């Protein structure tokens, strides 16, 4: 039953031959690749904690099978910055206290990266709407919105 999955995750190419067709992408990343930064919060596509980028688009890895990711380029939270060198969005999350327990954070970051890449984010309402598929229970969202707002401002500076 097992099949081979070739994917590129955070720039590294993996060829894994013993992937069950029913294996969720989230479990593939966590259990087979050891990338436990991707968190599983609901396994039914509502909470957004497991969000990763697949070919540049934000995707809930609990709603996708690993075999569907054959040939894809995947980015997880481990593919952003490092503790010594946080990327722009990570640094703004820290600056604005956009995380508490940290469980929803990887999904928030991956959704935030997607929003920053694709949308003007001219208003906070637009940011809140963009985040409405990612649930956080600690922060009340205010500081997450502030972090993404600040990252959007830095992006604007960078392009001007």
């Amino acid at each position, binding site marked *: 039953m097992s099949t081979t999955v070739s994917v590129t995750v955070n720039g590294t190419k993996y060829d894994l031959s013993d992937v069950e067709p029913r294996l969720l992408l989230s479990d593939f990343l966590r259990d087979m690749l050891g990338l436990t930064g991707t968190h599983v919060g609901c396994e039914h596509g509502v909470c957004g904690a497991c969000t990763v980028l697949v070919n540049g688009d934000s995707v809930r890895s609990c709603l996708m099978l690993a075999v569907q990711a054959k040939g894809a380029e995947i980015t997880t939270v481990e593919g952003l910055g490092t503790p010594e060198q946080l990327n722009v969005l990570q640094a703004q999350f820290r600056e604005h206290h956009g995380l508490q327990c940290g469980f929803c954070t990887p999904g928030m970051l991956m959704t935030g990266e997607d929003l920053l890449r694709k949308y003007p984010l001219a208003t906070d309402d637009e940011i809140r709407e963009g985040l409405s598929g990612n649930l*956080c229970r600690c922060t009340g969202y205010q500081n997450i919105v502030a972090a993404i707002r600040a990252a959007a401002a830095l992006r604007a500076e960078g392009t001007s």
Partner: protein
Amino acid sequence: MSNDTRAEPLDVMRPRNVGAPIKRTEDPRLLTGRGEYSADRKPDRLLHVAFLRSGQPHALITRIDTVTAQAAPGVIAVLTAEGIAGDFKPVIPFSRMPNYYATPIVPLAIGKVRYVGEAVAAVIATSRYLAEDALELIEVDYEPLDAIARAELAVVDDAVLLHEEAGTNVLISREFKKGDVVADLQAAAVRVSGRFEMTRKAPLAMEPRSYTAEYDKRRDAVTLYTSSNIPGIVRDAISESLDLPGHRLRVVAPDVGGSFGSKGSLYPEELLICIAARKLGRSLKWTADRLEDVSSSSQAFAEVVNAEMGFDANGVATSLQADVIGDVGAYSIYPWTCGLEPVQVVSFLPGPYKIASYRGAVRGVATCKPPTGPYRGVGRPISTFVAESLMDLGARALGLDPLEIRRRNLVRAEEFPYRIASGIIWDKTGFVECLEAAAEAAGYEQLRVEQAAARKRGRLLGVGIASYAELTGIGSRIAVAPGMPINTGSETAKITIDSTGAITAAFGVASHGQGLETTLAQIVADDLGARFEDIRVIQGDSDEVPMSTGTYASRSAVLGGGAAKHASRILQDKIKRVASHLLEANQDDIEVSGGKAAVIGTDRAVTLKQVAKAVYSDMKTLPVEAREELTATYTFDPINGTTAAATHIAVVEVDPATCFVKILKYVVAEDCGRIINPMIVDGQVHGGVAQGIGAALFEELVYDDDGQLLSASLVDYVIPSAAEVPVMDVVHIESESAVAGGFRGMGEGGTIGAPAAIANAIADALSPLGIDVSILPMTPERIFKLLEQARLNTRGKADE
């Protein structure tokens, strides 16, 4: 030796870290996917556990057949109550409370199930997928019994009993009395009353409960990594149950993804996984899926309160009485008991008000639902909802503004310490100051002007106020839960400088998002005189201090912070003694600051690393008797506790077409004493308010009359997203408490104030239609029904 030039002592003594918005130590790992939650552990030859859970609300188990499941691919073992009978003692959630029945806690149901979701059997297999496959192959025969789905029905005379041994479904009852409430109500100029209800709610942390038991065959020892906020309590309980001494049972709460109370009790699965790890000699992991987490983690509220308040002609509340019935679910929880939530409702009902006479009676009733347990605010979200509703009803009856009636009833600055009618003592806190600051920040008078204009245009706009007080940082004289036999009144700090000069501060508290690695290091940095970045805080590990409980009840800043301060001072004295030898100065002339010990008024200084080297490594510098180990342990007990208070003001608009409530403005003025880290305090308030918004508008665990949960997914159980939470304005009244550091606890307040403020705002918005708010959450469906009823009433009147 030092670049420091003449620092003035006053400058040195001033706190540099406490009060500063220092960026969190936790963040770099959590932002880069390098955090480690229980489910991230990967011990060698790991096996996975899956639980078969009851689909029956109340039934006898007549047969369990596991033969087919045992033979399924990857299955190592299938465990039932029978198979583990000799491996543990039931855990009893004991309490000295009279009129209380302690239901025993066991890992798997014995003979009978009492709620849908109760664990009946466990499969242990080589993967989670295979373990879940095998669940389907277990055959269980049930003999169904009548379901008890409503607390009111559980107390009728011929109700079926959930626990026959108890002889009743009322697991706990209690009454508080002060003064002659009947006479005072009769003498009152105005009496207001109502039936208030907060429905059953899920704490719903984003990380589902998860446990990894790692077995060490060399010593028959277990390390349990648990998503718990009470690892110390879990260690002690499992040690007793499994007869495993503490040095063979280590319980660690690594990074924990929120709790809000749902991870703050001992769970059957924690027992089972430790039992199975020893039985099989293997390491095991279990992670709840969301359905399991919602349907088997402790739940909240589920209370109905019939209450009445009397006022004199000046709007002073004189008397209050309440009868509370709490639907506590199928079992009492360890260690808090099923009395925790409902009893706190009557303990805190008089709130921050000087009400002379009081009677509060409470019954906690067993039903076929998961147990209720601690949830952020415990009892006070409801007591505040009820008291604040009655205040507004009184204001309306007397023609007073809601702000003014609170001014007339709050305990004032000169009246502290104040014992309220239920017996709780408030120490000096800014009750009135919070009220006035919130009103000012919200622009209260202008809001009323705007509201009047909006009403003229037919808009349903309302303003709601809620004031409350809570007891935080509770010491040993007061039990966190009534009559509970364990000590929750102290907290230990153990601070060590090792031979490399590294500073490690270990605590028994267990952060699950509060940022204690940061705030406790801020305190140690100031009181020890070290650099913030040089301090490592260890917490959530039962091996680090001899006795610990965890983080709950807004205790960690007060108790952990107090312990940190005292231990730091003891260690600083040791540093000074060593430095006095090294610097050839009197130890009274030495100050420790920024990681150095210096002779005041000179540039003669040694680093803490040099001090450590002198003590541990260099055998020539110090006389033998001066080589004191650089470690200090202090167990701090604030004896009583300290008050925290706030006033919330919400402005809402009800859309008559969609029946949705939009929050237009939200202000919190709070007094949490001296602030350790303002960034973290604001974050706690924001998050608490967001959960209070959920409780006020969205979140409800709906059980049908057969005890089946109808809202078990996150599609049906709706928590607020970024789009539903408004911008919150937080004002701080920083009045120092009398306990060490001047801190007050502040982790829960947001959730206490928000439901009441929003309920009052909705009631205010709908008051032109004669609608009161008596049940939360105010979902669009409930508002629709209230609006329909109001329309019918108006039509009825028109027809008359």
